[in-house]
């Protein structure tokens, strides 16, 4: 027989032998358990996560779709509309808020995490950390509401400033209020992640650096930071992604010129605009921005966070 045919027939025959009924039944039986374990959740995720995402991908290509209307044609109009200056500005604004918040959280959170992980008395570390994280467990709505009480022109901060004879602030309904509110919301996340990273820092490295004559600043920049870079990246990623899609803070604390992408999407579906096609396209763009951020920051973080082994 020609060489090629010989090579082809042998595996085919082998396959045929394995695929007899008994073996197939055995395979099925063996897969009952994994199916039972992974099936239900998998089906649920498929139905309510995957399918919906695919659906909005489709709708994003339907220009000007109103609810209740039939899909008449596809086109890039929705995406092109996003390129208009007004909407690009919204995207830019969201990204600016997110970046600013991330930086603020990093700058303010790192000292806290450092102190907690490396300088606080050992016995109290866990408790102190939990205390810092505690506000996370309360409603983010209410925490933002607290800031309204503080920031409004007749609010607490101005009361205090007035009592001290200082000029009053008018931060309410401005970008600054949004930064304050967002930083307040996400600082605990940053501290938590940085703490986890700093806790694992090998102190002997710091000692070694000091022994080799490095001053504290050099030690910090050349030992501490590189060692905790994955944690920093993870923290920044989490804060960036969550603040990018944040809805509550800009809506309650921001003024009429603080429209963010989340609010814009909301308006397309449950607000005045009723343009589901455009809203879907905006959602896809948001997902894209998030994916980009993840890809970028994962470069510096743990390559494969093997949560599922």
């Amino acid at each position, binding site marked *: 027989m020609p060489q090629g045919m010989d090579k082809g027939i042998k595996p085919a025959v082998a396959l045929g032998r394995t695929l007899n009924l008994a073996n197939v039944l055995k395979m099925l039986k063996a897969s009952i358990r*994994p199916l039972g*374990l992974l099936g239900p959740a998998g089906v649920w*995720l498929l139905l309510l996560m995957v399918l919906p995402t695919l*659906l909005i991908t489709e709708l994003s290509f339907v220009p000007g779709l109103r609810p209740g209307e039939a899909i008449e044609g596809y086109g890039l109009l929705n995406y092109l509309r996003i390129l208009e200056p007004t909407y690009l500005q919204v995207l830019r604004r969201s990204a600016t808020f997110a970046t600013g918040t991330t930086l603020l959280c990093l700058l303010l959170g790192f000292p806290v995490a450092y*102190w907690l992980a490396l300088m606080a008395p050992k016995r109290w570390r866990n408790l102190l950390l939990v205390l810092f994280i505690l506000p996370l467990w309360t409603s983010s709505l209410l925490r933002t509401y607290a800031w309204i009480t503080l920031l409004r022109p*007749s609010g607490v901060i101005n009361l205090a400033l007035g009592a001290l004879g200082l000029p009053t602030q008018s931060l309410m309904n401005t970008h600054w209020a949004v930064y304050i509110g967002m930083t307040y919301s996400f600082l605990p996340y940053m501290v938590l992640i940085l703490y986890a990273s700093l806790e694992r820092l090998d102190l002997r490295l710091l000692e070694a650096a*000091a022994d080799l004559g490095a001053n504290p600043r050099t*030690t910090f920049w050349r030992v501490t930071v590189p060692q905790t870079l994955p944690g920093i990246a993870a923290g920044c990623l989490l804060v960036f992604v969550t603040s990018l899609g944040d*809805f509550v803070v800009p809506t309650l604390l921001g003024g009429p010129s603080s429209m963010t992408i989340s609010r814009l999407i909301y308006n397309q579906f449950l607000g005045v605009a009723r343009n589901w096609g455009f809203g879907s396209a905006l959602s896809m763009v948001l997902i894209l921005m998030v994916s980009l951020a993840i890809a970028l920051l994962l470069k510096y973080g743990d390559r494969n966070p093997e949560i599922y082994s």
Partner: protein
Amino acid sequence: MNSAKDATKNRRRLSWQALVTVLMYSFMYIPIIILGVYSFNESRYGAIWKGFSLTWYRKLMGDERLFLALGDSLKIALCAVAVSSVLGTLMAVGLARYRFPGKSLYVGVSYLPLIIPDIAIAVATLVFLASVSIPLSLWTAIAAHMVFCLAYIAIVVSSRLQGLDPNLEEAALDLGATPTQALIRVLIPQLMPAILSGCLLAFVLSMDDLLISSFTAGGANPLPIEIFSRVKTGIKPDINALSVLLILASGLIAALSEYFRYKSERI
């Protein structure tokens, strides 16, 4: 920054990190404290202190609409978490045990609810429900909440799974237990603290959820939506009272969660 050694030597001297830390703790807690103080203020407007009073708490107690909203939220959260705890745990166990073609895809999909912003998930779910003509109701909200609940529970349980002793289960099998029995009577009890911890996390997330509920709940009015509409229409002192109560409740849940985590680490 000082090295840790220096810090121990100079514990007396206040390091600037400690200073920043104190500032940040104040930053975190002052708004909450202010809310608490104002919840006891007789006057409607924060500017004037009219005297200590429980008026707003009393008003809160008589607010039927709010309690109905709380009821709706609890219904959604409890149902979603209950079902998700089972599904999520099974999923975590399955992923830890088996390798199969397409596993990374499955894993990726299970990450999605954590990564994709709430608004996008909410929107996608609404669009899906509208396209298959399912009217929005309490059940659609529960269904939507289940998605992120099971993702979070799965992650918490998975991280615990890694640290478990596989010999226990093998021993059970050797002693004649069926794999199912081994699962239920050996593995699950070991995982219980993690499952509970994950459930608490999912519960809190579900109770606090605004966007997904806005888009998927019909006829039901979960608490965050009610609070949101009230906050948008102005400062109301009974919201202060509500905040204090909810913060206390959350603190309790956080303490519980910490307790479970602590227990699970001791096993």
